């Protein structure tokens, strides 16, 4: 399975791979002010370990932005 992570094609990933698995692999902490967009739908961090990724999914890591 290949994913587009933050708009870059990433390496092969195993099947039954969750958002939580991806974050752990990328060493990204699942902080409460992070949401993950998959194909233009946001998932909050209580869904990270129950949401499976699929071949070709576009994954965006979106943090709160404070600048103004």
């Amino acid at each position, binding site marked *: 399975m290949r994913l587009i992570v933050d*708009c870059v094609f990433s390496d092969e990933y195993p099947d039954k791979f969750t958002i939580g698995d991806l974050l752990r692999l990328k060493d990204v902490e699942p902080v409460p002010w992070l*949401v993950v*967009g998959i194909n233009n739908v946001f998932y909050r961090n209580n869904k990270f370990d129950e949401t499976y990724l699929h071949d070709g999914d576009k994954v965006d890591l979106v943090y*709160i932005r*404070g600048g103004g």
Partner: protein
Amino acid sequence: MKKLSETQLEKYYCSTFLKEIGEKGQLKLLDSKVLVVGAGGLASSTLLYLATSGVGHIGVVDNDVVSLSNLPRQILYAQGDIGQAKVDVAKKKLEYINPDTKVTPYNMWLNKENAEKIIKDYDIVLDCVDNFETKFLINDVCKKLNKPFISAGVSDYKGQIMTITDKSKCDFKSIFQTLPIDIPQEEKDKDQGVFSIAVGIISNIQCAETLKFLLGIGELLIDKMLLVDSLKMEFRTFDIK
């Protein structure tokens, strides 16, 4: 029935020509009260367009003064304004640009003690602040007072914006659940850099959302977040579920 004056008919000719707005819509804008929290980069451009669009009353909350490093992205201010309170400069310039607009300056930071008192008088609130605490405060107070608000944030080349009204299933806090804490200094430092045009793009979208809300036209970013990446020139709208 209230009507636009001859001067106003000429001034707002282009917008009143739009069938969704018309004279009735322009009168609505002239009768509207918008609170802008923050008078920095996002607010600068938003304030200018709110005023030129003929929003009748604008409140601006900020306790900062104009400084040299503000000028590239805070386009409401000029070098001669350095050292002056941003809200006072904003009032002077906006009322000069459009005498139909009255500006109430609040030369203070929005905080738990004053937020309800200030926000209750306005039709809509714009989050143009640069800190997370105030974003969460605006969310909480607007929710309590049932006031719509439009939240925007920008750093480096990217920005995000969402509109929260009584029709929203999600508010700011239900997406970003808590205030960011213990952010490493290197991450904070990354937030300092900003592409001035990214600020302008996001703030103009924020203003468009505001005017559409006041006019009751078009579609709003309700239960959606728009992400803009001005480096890749990508605009993507995410549904929030």
